[in-house]
């Protein structure tokens, strides 16, 4: 049994531990027919993946290698452009800022989501009356449609009528043009994104904490460890595999965040909150004259980034599973 048992919550619902070895002989004799029927059961999924995943991704690569105009997009006879779209993207004055905004947005989001999520997980794990109910309520921000969260934050951060600036004024601090100042727009979308991501971190880290045996804490208590020492010497090291998973998933998810930024600032003002994800949407769908080639090129770049993190995540995750 792994010391950190992250699947606890799932197992409450599904007693899912594979006991695969007990294959009946009768079943083995029917192996050939089973193979065929496995293929039949898998066929809809394989077809689905081919049409609705592989083909759109292929179209995307094609888009990025051709010089499309609106007209040739409809007619489908755009000339081959080689890597021109990629060169355009890399040499665009938007590229540098978009990349650095993406990096800032991702790193700052994850640091805060993870830090706050971990603190809350430890707090809720200590157990007290109502802790279960309150922990469930913490899920709300994560379950709300992103457009709901984003528009609520937009109004809360409104320069003249927002509650946040009203609170700042009440505390004697100057007002901030959260969404309309290039210095603050990235901070504004970060605040909203951190708020949305905390519940996810809380739930996963909490289930990780549930997997740490209480014996370890009791032993530490006998040795006279205080709460602080217990956290640094026991909780954090034993939570490391779960933490790695949480952070890697956070990376993958945060890279693709688009809705919140687009709804709150449209990547502006003056590109000050443009990330790679909003830039690709801006080029492809955000203007009167769509520029699909470069948009697809940025999109493919994003896929590469996400998949790189994915490849780091999968071995970490399977090591965790097999412990």
């Amino acid at each position, binding site marked *: 049994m792994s010391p950190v048992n*992250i699947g*606890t919550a*799932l197992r409450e*619902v599904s007693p*899912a531990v594979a*006991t*695969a070895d*007990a*294959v009946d002989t*009768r*079943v083995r004799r029917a192996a050939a027919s*089973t193979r065929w*029927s*496995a293929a039949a*059961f*898998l066929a*809809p*999924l394989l077809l*689905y*993946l081919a049409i*609705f995943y592989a083909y*759109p*991704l292929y*179209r*995307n690569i094609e*888009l990025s290698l051709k010089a499309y105009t609106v007209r040739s*997009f409809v007619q489908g006879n755009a000339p081959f452009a080689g890597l021109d779209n990629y060169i355009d993207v890399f040499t665009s004055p938007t590229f540098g800022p978009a990349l650095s905004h993406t990096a800032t947005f991702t790193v700052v989001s994850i640091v805060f989501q993870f830090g706050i999520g971990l603190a809350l997980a430890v*707090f809720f794990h200590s157990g*007290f009356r109502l802790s279960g109910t*309150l922990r469930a*309520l913490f899920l*709300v921000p*994560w379950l709300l*449609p992103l*457009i*709901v969260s984003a*528009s609520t*934050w937009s*109004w809360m951060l409104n320069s*003249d*009528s927002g*509650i946040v600036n*009203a609170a700042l*004024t009440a505390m004697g601090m100057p007002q901030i043009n959260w969404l309309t100042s290039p210095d603050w727009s990235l901070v504004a979308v970060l605040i909203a994104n951190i*708020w949305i991501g*905390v519940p996810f971190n809380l*739930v*996963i880290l909490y289930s990780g904490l549930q997997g740490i045996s209480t014996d370890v804490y009791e032993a530490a208590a006998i040795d006279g460890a205080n709460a602080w020492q217990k956290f640094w010497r026991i909780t954090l090291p034993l939570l490391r595999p779960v933490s790695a*998973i949480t952070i890697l998933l956070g990376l*993958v998810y945060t890279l693709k965040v*688009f809705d919140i930024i687009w709804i709150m600032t449209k990547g502006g003002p003056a590109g000050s909150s443009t990330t790679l994800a909003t830039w690709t949407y801006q080029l492809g*769908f955000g203007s009167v004259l769509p520029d*699909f080639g470069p948009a*697809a090129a940025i999109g493919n770049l994003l*896929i590469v980034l*996400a*998949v790189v993190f994915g490849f780091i995540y*999968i071995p970490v*995750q399977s090591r965790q*599973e097999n412990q």
Partner: protein
Amino acid sequence: MSTRRFSFKTILGIVLTAIMLFPVYWMINVSLTPSKDMRKSPPSLFPVDVTFEGYSAVLQQQMPFLGTSLILGLGTVILTVAVAAPAAFALAKLRPRGAGLLNFLMLIAQMIPAIIIAMGFYAIYLGMGVLNTLPGLIVADSTIAVPFAVLIFSAFMSGIPDELLNAAKIDGASNWRTFRSIVMPVSRNSVVTVSLFAFLWAWSDFIFASTLNNGGALRPITLGIYAYIGNNNQQWNAIMATAVVASIPAAVLLVVAQKYVSAGVTAGAVKD
């Protein structure tokens, strides 16, 4: 002394939850604020002069959007379960060649940004003439849920005892019959988890709706809210009232199915 610490923690927990949920409270508060007080400075912390003008605007203008989202959510649930459940059964119980690779692909598929899939879909849908149609949007929305569903289903189904399936086989049941009459009923919990998330994701989707269905007659509620925000005379009580209504599925889900939600969050992250 220990009881005192007990209640101190509960109070701290309530305060933290209140801070976390303040934006939700604020959304409700603004939805009940009359337009004339909307620009009041500082804003009232409580709905002193309650109005339902925002909600009556929802009733008058947003009902078609809500209906569309409902159909969209249900359609996505059906498509997702129909595609994912049989495949997951095969992966978990029939152990075909390449099962490991397929599981791996499911994990990778979840990492592909929807905005990129949307662009590919746009090019394809434009050619096929299914832009701005509900079936087109249902298919697109299901791509968010299908990989997750396959992983959840196969994790659950691999826990079904082989003896149960073999007993059915000895009784002469085909694999299809076993799947339909034993595996699916036994997997009820995972069907609930998958359906809840598929519905919620389709209901909340903005990316696919705004790219593939922006000019359609039947648009989902996310676009209804977005159109409100884009209006020049922003009626924030109507926007927030729509947001409150759009949050109802999430609230219902949390109340009736909280254990499934936690299961889904954890399982989506760490199961394979």
